[in-house]
């Protein structure tokens, strides 16, 4: 038995090696965006109102940082995201599993799930405010609601899509129903759990920001909103940048590795 030879190692030129690296690409891209931003800001009229320069934004952030507002807003938002999406996943995963394992229950719940899936987090906002007021609870409920459906649907279809022959094979080895769930259906649904989690957390992240804006709760969403009222464009840009960067970091260091550690190793998802 022979395995395929590894691809021959070729010497790379220094330039090639530098541009090959993802980190370097990212840095170049970032610098490019900043330069473009700086140029636009320099040529337009009244940049402090329409597009403050990177430097102005930085100074304004230092100001907010010094007052302690930035840290406090940022941690409020992150806390909501973490708690909201974890609870959402903890509810959505078992729910999706139960539906995936039982066709009768799934058929019963499906129309209801499909209905609520179409009613976005923003659309339920007014009624939640009527019930719970402009409170942190309202924001949490909206995050939870938003993150629940993507994961539940993905887990449901993940369990369903496990090939029948894997289940048959386990049955012929004498596996009990519990053993089939543990050894076949759960691991088989893992790709969908990972994909669904990432979707859910992405949705939750948007819901936090929108929720904070609408419910006027301290946090990044609120910071952006307040920036408009205070005519502080730099604060708005800072808030937007933090939202985007937080997602990129979260995705890069937590969500993607989670996916690749299990799924790519099994060869279930090929990129």
């Amino acid at each position, binding site marked *: *038995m022979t395995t395929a030879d590894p691809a021959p190692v070729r010497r790379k030129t220094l330039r090639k090696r530098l541009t090959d690296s993802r980190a370097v690409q990212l840095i170049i891209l970032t610098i490019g965006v900043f330069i473009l931003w700086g140029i636009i800001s320099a040529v337009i009229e009244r940049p402090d109102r329409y597009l403050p320069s990177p430097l102005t934004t930085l100074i304004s952030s230092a100001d907010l940082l010094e007052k302690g507002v930035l840290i406090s807003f940022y941690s409020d938002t992150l806390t909501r995201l973490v708690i909201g999406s974890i609870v959402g996943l903890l509810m959505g995963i078992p729910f999706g599993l139960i539906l995936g394992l039982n066709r009768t229950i799934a058929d019963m719940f499906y129309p209801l799930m499909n209905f609520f899936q179409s009613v976005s987090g923003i659309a339920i906002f007014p009624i939640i405010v009527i019930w719970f007021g402009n409170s942190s609870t309202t924001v949490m409920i909206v995050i939870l609601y938003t993150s629940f459906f993507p994961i539940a649907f993905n887990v449901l279809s993940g369990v369903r899509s496990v*090939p029948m*022959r*894997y289940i*048959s*094979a*386990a*049955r*012929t*080895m*004498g*596996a*009990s129903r519990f*053993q089939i769930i543990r*050894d*076949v259906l759960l*691991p*088989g649904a*893992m790709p969908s759990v990972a994909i669904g989690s990432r979707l859910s957390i992405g949705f939750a992240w948007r819901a936090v920001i929108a929720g904070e804006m609408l419910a006027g709760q301290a946090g990044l969403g609120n910071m952006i909103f307040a920036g408009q009222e205070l005519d502080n464009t730099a604060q708005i840009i800072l808030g937007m940048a933090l939202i985007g960067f937080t997602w990129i970091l979260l995705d890069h260091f937590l969500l993607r590795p989670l996916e690749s550690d*299990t799924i790519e*190793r*099994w*060869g*279930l998802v090929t990129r």
Partner: protein
Amino acid sequence: MTGEAKLIVQGLSHHYPDEYTGESVHALDNIDLKIYENEFVAIVGPSGCGKTTFLNIIAGLLPYREGRAMVDGVDIKGPGPDRGVVFQEHAILPWRTVSRNIGHGLELRRTPKAETQRRVQEYVDLVGLSGFEDRYPHELSGGMKQRVAVARTLCADPVIMLMDEPFAAVDAQTRITLQDELNRVVMATEKTILFITHSVEEAAFLGDRCIVFSRRPGRIKSEIKIDIPRAERQWKDMVNNSKFTDARDEILGLVRSEVTSNDDG
């Protein structure tokens, strides 16, 4: 063949209900078959004649109502570890390594770890996968995956091993290697095997007995004994073995007549 019958099938028929037309598909008709200990029985027949149906009933994956099927004298009522199945498509689990796939059957029975490890290693070596124990299936070639599937079934030590076109999905060269290897493995483990195939050559090469199914509804059309000791069954010798070539040609004739009679029907 001496010894006791491991598998006994009596008057087994099967109809698939058709939900749309209300008519039923008559897949198997009145099958009688006995397979004895350490016997290798190959079934060939035209496509759609009911071979997989037959195997699925024996495996316990398909409930039956007409006739009887028994393993070791006990009526088949569902799947069980006394019957191991090697499926046509790779049915080894992608999220388990080679050794964890092979040991899965023992794990399901809560066999002690040390015992499982020893047995797994034995079968890893037997099918020539040493060094690949910790690989995942997607890192293996098609032939290697089927070796894992065979080892997994053997390792669970079934009374009878059921194989449904296990080598149909691999290339011709690998197929020949796998057939030679299966012979060696059967010799080493003294297993009782029911083997389904499209390939007449494969049936004649592997089977102690070859059962030819008629076109649907599948009936036993004829039965050919291939009296060649297992030790002599290697491709490099078999091509010149007249017992093999005679049996192959006879089976081929029987299968051909089934297929041609199928043309106008």
